[in-house]
């Protein structure tokens, strides 16, 4: 591929044995990192090195490594998913860094995302928000009406898709100075609000999801827009505005 080059880097990685003890940043040196490697492959390389020195490897969440599962979650050099936009950490490549760079690697920081170990956090708060209303109450019998019975304007379908493209990684919360989850919730509320199938339960959905969101201990949105910039899927702030509208409508009912 384009650049065949190796670099040496310094890492400052958050190490924490579990949620009950204190953690700290630990310095590591890693040499011969291919700039074609992804950031997680670089961490693999570090872990290989640590394990062969009989040290504990760095724990981090990752799975699909193609930017869609939403598992990976690192705060790199002060930014969620690192110094590039429109990507997850697994899509961040080492060519974004220079030889000799010092790289800070920290977990998502949020009261609602407690640390499990090292860089691994518990994001089940998102699951609970979804459980509070992120669905259409339709039985899975398949005996619904034909899929083409209700036409959906392409614009709405496209917008619903753009909102539904959220991967639930939590970068919005991690990057928001308030630790707010409104982009995540707004995206889910929007997806359903834009489709005729979702309209039936629109009132309860937005009330319940927002209530759950507040109970989980996320902060409040102050419209800084950082979430939109750092969202790997480019979910728009428009979705938060739509949720605000939906919530107002629902509250006045």
């Amino acid at each position, binding site marked *: *591929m*384009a650049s065949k080059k190796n670099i040496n880097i310094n890492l400052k990685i958050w190490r924490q*044995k*579990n949620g009950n003890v204190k953690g700290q940043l630990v310095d590591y040196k890693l040499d011969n990192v291919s700039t*074609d*490697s*992804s950031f*997680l492959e*670089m961490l*693999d390389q570090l872990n*290989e090195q640590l*394990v*062969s020195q009989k040290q504990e*490897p760095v724990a981090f969440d990752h*799975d*699909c*490594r*193609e930017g*869609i*599962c*939403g*598992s990976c979650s690192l705060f790199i050099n002060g930014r969620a998913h690192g110094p*590039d936009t429109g990507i997850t950490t697994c*899509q961040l*490549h080492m060519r974004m860094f220079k030889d000799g760079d010092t790289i800070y690697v920290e977990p998502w920081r949020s009261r609602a995302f407690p640390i*499990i170990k090292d860089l*691994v956090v*518990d*994001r*089940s708060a998102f*699951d609970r928000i*979804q*459980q509070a209303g992120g*669905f*259409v109450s*339709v039985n*899975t*019998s*398949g*005996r*619904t009406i*034909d*899929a*083409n019975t209700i*036409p*959906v304007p*392409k614009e709405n*379908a*496209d917008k619903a*898709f753009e909102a*539904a*493209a959220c*991967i*639930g990684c939590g970068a919005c919360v991690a990057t928001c100075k308030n630790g707010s989850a409104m982009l995540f919730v707004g995206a889910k509320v929007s*997806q*359903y609000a*834009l*489709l005729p*199938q*979702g309209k039936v339960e629109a009132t309860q959905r937005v009330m319940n999801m927002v209530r759950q969101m507040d109970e989980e201990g996320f902060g409040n949105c102050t419209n800084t827009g950082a979430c939109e910039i750092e969202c790997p899927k480019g979910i728009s702030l428009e979705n938060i505005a739509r949720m605000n509208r939906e919530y107002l409508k629902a509250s006045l009912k």
Partner: protein
Amino acid sequence: MKLDSKIPEGHISEKWTNHKNNLKLVAPNNRPKIDIIVVGTGLAGASAAASLGEMGYNVKAFCFQDSPRRAHSIAAQGGINAAKNYQNDGDSVYRLFYDTIKGGDYRAREANVHRLAEVSGNIIDQCVAQGVPFAREYGGMLDNRSFGGTQVQRTFYAAGQTGQQLLLGAYSALSRQIGLGRVQMFNRHEMMDLVKVDGKARGIIARNLVTGEIERHSAHAVIIASGGYGNVYFLSTNAMGSNVTAAWKVHKQGALFSNPCFVQIHPTCIPVHGTNQSKLTLMSESLRNSGRIWVPKKKEDAEAIRAGQLKPTQIAEEDRDYFLERRYPAFGNLVPRDVASRAAKERCDAGYGIEANDTNEGVYLDFSTEIQNKGKQAAYASGNHNPSPEEITRLGKKWLEEKYGNLFTMYQKITDENPYETPMKIYPAVHYTMGGVWVDYNLQSTIPGCFVAGEANFSDHGANRLGASALMQGLADGYFVLPYTVSNYLADDIRTGKISTSLPEFDEAEKRVKDQINSFLSNNGTKTVDYFHKRLGLIMWNKVGMGRNEQGLKEAISEIDALRAEFYKDVFVPGSADELNQELEKALRVADFLELGQLMAMDALERNESCGGHFREEYQDAEGETLRDDENYAFVSAWEYKGPDISKEELHKEELKYEYIKIAARNYK
């Protein structure tokens, strides 16, 4: 052991309806007395758990990820097939059935595949009702596109993220049931073993991956929906965590394992870049709608490209070998995956590969023709009948961006090359495994009460899966098959009462698991788990990969055997058992891959024919096409575990009868 596939009587189009009418039911008031375990929360698992929870059973669902939404179904890009015939191009249930059987190279069970085609339409209805935002046309109707191996447009899609949207749909249904308390969700839990009581599946042992606690969970039935085993190759398009453990543990408890050698190598992935590479990234099959695959006609051009002296755009049109169009004029770039992959391998083996990696493995996927075509169309559509070449190129690129923007961006992020300007480099990579746990028509394995769904079973795709059919199968199994067949099984369990987890069978299973964990942690070897996994992957890719032969397979069998011994002797697993220990998780999974890999080679060696993804170099015609042996190999292989020595596994055969499709050589020319 006699394999009874329990295929219902009657005409193929009535089998499923008749069968459903005759299945036993569990009354609503009895369902809360019954527990069901679902392992895995991908399309099959999530849809099954949601459906069964909705029916009123007590469901316990398990996933090793931090959320059920992260199962690897999420990564499916292209689409989902359904015989809706919305495009009015002659599609029907029969055609989908026929295409799937043919695409599978006549190694799938007719009745299962027909059922899949029958329910395919319901899947779309269901998903739309759930709020899945499929792509639509300007008139508000659902849009379709073409996929490999078909001549109709029956693929529904949501940009390049169809799997994600479908999984999130199933996840939303599952979430609803979790919220209602009908499904109890166990995130970050890995199934470590199956517990059988009186020969029936009655529970599992699971490890809480956060605390390391070994937990016992009992149930009246266990559903395994843990996905495929592509990661046996180390490098694949699977997620890092995708593993065979659940399915393999079931196999070791007595469930037969079918067609392990049927692995799908996907033709359009980004080529390997280096030794630290952890996984391969798929570029959706949908790109073959617009891209043309080629390598240089002249070897010296290929060499110059690899050396960086020539750019692909400098190769003249007449010096390009569009080898799929040349070999398969009828289907062209849209031949099935196995055919496309093999053709690419053939060119690279012959020295025409263009990627400058160790193996020169790479071919071009070129969009320049499409840019010109679509650019011209767009110009005309906007009333400009005399567009300049620049205008055409600009409009063509815009069209591509609208259609495939996210894929192109992904490609650029990974490779640092701009696919709008220069052709993509692609090469086949392990993607999907058609083999899996043997199941009957009811998706029940040879262990009563142990059902297997989705990619984890073997049932619907024969020797090769068509694009956009995996999503269809996963949801069909979970939404529309298991709710009926599992209920039928459970109808006899309404008086059983709760299964105790203090039965000796649970003790034994728990001990097995703990012993294995402790042996890893106290092993004190010198090599990492990945070291062994990568070596296994290399053996598998080189000898049990796209091209296989008797000698290579025999070597593979003994090499894997030796590697497994070395693994147990020399692997080092740091940390302890009572914490989040990702190295330990990997070790436990790789241990199973090391056994499965050997069985795959054995299965491939046993099958003296070429069919679908299984290409035995000894069995090809003069043009390099697969040579099936329907006389001797029209069967499903089903292996029975016979102890730690994998070479002792016993082969059973389920004969495949084709009553409704005329079996023929697969021809895409």
